[in-house]
């Protein structure tokens, strides 16, 4: 069965994309000629943010010496920072272009490899990112950035043993707070949430060298652990995380999720009202608006749908988790949600991925997927009472039901051949 060939797939894929592409087009079928020259058509990201201030100078420096590594690296780094602040993947493309001369070289200079890995993992290309980081760490076993990035990528992939080894090695080359949080993030996923909580809390209080970024990361982690454990302290942690870095979109999304679970959608709407550009925040905003039963919900849902359609049309599968949640909670299509959730957990295995899988499995009463959830809980021993309750309450699977197994921690993920995660060959999915 594995014997079928692939090349034709791409040719056929273009035909497949058609249905989706249609939808992407259909949403905006009415081009117009503005009546007033002063009419504002588009607002660009604020130029006053530190990340953008230096861009012009860096662009000029890189353009002046296109063969030199240093200005290219400086420019690419600035773009990567901008992509974080704006949540706009365009900047990752700009960063890639800045490194074009070295982009395809597997033995590129070490700082290029580190940046390339960062850009790749940002597009959820985890395996190629790890390959680059492996190369870096063969050259420089003590490269802190590479260790930390690889540890977090492996953690996201659910490969906890090698991730833990990287965190341990990080302790020797970076401020210890990084190693503490790095390890705690794994503990929190593998049945040691209270130990994780204690170590991060102690470290944040007692360590002298805690910068804002580390505080933000640590508090976000504490907030997520408290959220899963049903501990109201989550709010203080998320607030502290955002106080340390008020541009952190991830912390915003995590906080919004907590508020939504607490039945406080009005605060979510207030928190995210100017953040509709960022898909994952628009998703939370739409959930809040739906809970509040305000008319804006319709528009937000339509926009999200159009963005997912557009992303399918270009063959992207970066947003599987959000796509699953959208289908489940906003679009009322649990079957599609489950498809995305199952595809997603082959790539990403964070707590949020487990939750959306469990909720979609319960909504469709899919025995195979519920079994997948149980196995996840059993294998990792992750403490997630809400998910465990879903797994318990859903009916037991039929005897001998076989199903695609999630990759065991440490196993190579079975990325290819699954249409859902392969760019360009995604089957048409009706929203």
């Amino acid at each position, binding site marked *: *069965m594995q014997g079928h060939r692939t090349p034709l797939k791409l040719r056929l894929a273009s035909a*497949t994309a058609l249905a989706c592409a249609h939808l992407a087009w259909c949403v905006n079928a009415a081009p117009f000629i503005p009546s007033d020259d002063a009419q504002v058509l588009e607002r660009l990201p604020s130029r006053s943010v530190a990340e953008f201030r230096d861009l012009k100078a860096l662009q000029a420096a890189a353009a002046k010496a296109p063969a030199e590594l240093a200005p290219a690296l400086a420019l690419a780094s600035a773009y990567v920072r901008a992509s974080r602040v704006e949540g706009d993947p365009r900047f990752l*493309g700009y960063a890639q272009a800045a490194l074009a001369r070295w982009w395809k070289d597997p033995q590129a200079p070490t700082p290029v490899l580190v940046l390339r890995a960062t850009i790749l993992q940002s597009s959820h290309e985890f395996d190629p990112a790890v390959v680059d980081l492996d190369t870096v760490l063969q050259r420089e076993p003590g490269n802190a950035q590479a260790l930390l990035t690889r540890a977090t990528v492996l953690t996201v992939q659910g490969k906890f043993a090698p991730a833990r080894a990287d965190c341990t090695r990080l302790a020797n080359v970076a401020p210890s707070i990084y190693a503490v949080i790095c390890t705690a993030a794994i503990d929190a996923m593998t049945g040691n949430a209270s130990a994780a909580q204690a170590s991060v809390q102690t470290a944040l209080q007692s360590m002298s060298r805690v910068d804002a970024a580390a505080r933000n990361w640590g508090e976000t982690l504490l907030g997520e652990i408290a959220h899963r454990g049903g501990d109201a302290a989550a709010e203080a942690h998320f607030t502290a995380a955002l106080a340390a870095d008020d541009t952190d979109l991830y912390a915003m999304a995590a906080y919004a999720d907590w508020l939504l679970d607490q039945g406080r959608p009005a605060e979510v709407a207030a928190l995210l009202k100017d953040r509709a550009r960022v898909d994952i925040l628009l998703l939370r905003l739409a959930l809040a608006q739906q809970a509040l039963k305000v008319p804006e919900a319709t528009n937000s849902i339509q926009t999200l749908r159009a963005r997912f359609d557009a992303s399918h049309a270009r063959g992207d599968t970066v947003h599987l988790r959000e796509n699953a949640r959208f289908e489940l909670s906003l679009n009322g299509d649990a079957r599609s949600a489950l498809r995305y959730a199952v595809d997603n957990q082959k790539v990403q295995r964070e707590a949020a991925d487990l939750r959306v899988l469990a909720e979609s499995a319960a909504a469709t009463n899919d025995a195979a997927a519920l079994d997948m959830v149980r196995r996840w809980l059993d294998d990792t021993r992750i403490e997630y009472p809400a998910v465990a309750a879903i797994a318990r309450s859903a009916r037991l699977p039929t005897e001998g039901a076989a199903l695609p197994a999630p990759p065991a921690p440490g196993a190579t993920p079975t990325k290819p051949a699954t249409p859902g995660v392969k760019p360009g060959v995604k089957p048409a999915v009706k929203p």
Partner: protein
Amino acid sequence: MRRWLIASTLMLLAWALPAIAHKPSDSYITLNVDGDTVAGQWDIALRDLDFALGLDANQDGDITWGEVKAKQADIDAYALSRLRLGPAGAPCPASATGHLIDNHSDGAYAVIRFSATCAAAPKSLAVGYRLFFDIDPQHRGLLRLEYQGDTRAGIFSADTPDQSFTLGALSKWQQFLDYGNEGIWHIWTGFDHILFLLSLLLPAVLVRSTIPGQRWEPAASFADTFWDVVKVVTAFTLAHSITLSLAALGVVTLPSRLVESAIALSVVLAALNNLWPVVYRKRWLIAFCFGLIHGFGFASVLADLGLPQESLLIALVAFNLGVEVGQLAIVGVFLPVAYALRGSAFYQRGVFLLGSAAIALVAVVWLVQRAFNLKIIGG
């Protein structure tokens, strides 16, 4: 360099954490081919044009219609010089015919309407797309090509900037051939299907012996053998066509691990049935029952290929026919050879008994690796 190192330490965390993306850069291009004329509409995000050309003249962060209009000639020149219609030797030159604005889900887009005239009506349209790839290699151009009521789609990326689209009736035919070809290859390279079919066909040239102690003897007439083969092949075909269609249309779905394991099991049982016959006269029944399972296997391949919604039926029928053609080719080779050799010890012991045992063994390994998700040998 020093400065970068310091900066990188500060960014240590932010970089390591997973990204939170919003919609990346796409442009939408529609081409309508009519004779030697191509009418087009191209939607390009203002944000992208601003990055490339600097639309925001007064640097206030707002792009106004006035600012766009002032740069219109630059935009046209920039965009249209990066789009080639027609072959490299004789491109169809394009010029802008209208300028509008449209709001997509992620912001405002400049809409360029244009028209291109080719030297002759193209039979297939070559499109070369180079917009933004130099400044944003993650940019994509999403094409919709319309020709005589037929619509096709294409995705241009930095790695695939040149594509050619066959126009009109031929494209449906081409699609049919593509899927048919894929079906043929699938049965030829899908060893589990071949072995299943062979296991059921191996005994077709033999009959159960009436002599005690001897289990098989050569079939007396080719006609009997032929009809036996026809029954088995038809039953298998009918069964997998049913489930392939049901699965492809989304009526029934089964977990792929279950399907793959059951297919392996079917091969094991079919092969063992030759060594210790349980079903003989009614092997077509085995072919039918297990054929239902094999159909689900074919469907997962078809799903991998992607089913074009607008020509679902063509793809389905073509793929199925491809599978049948591939299957008939195998039968066509097998039957005369097996019939000629049926009386020999080589066939009766070597091919039939040892062959069946070998098939059963291979299939057991498949079964174990598929059911328990192990990697032992390629299957």
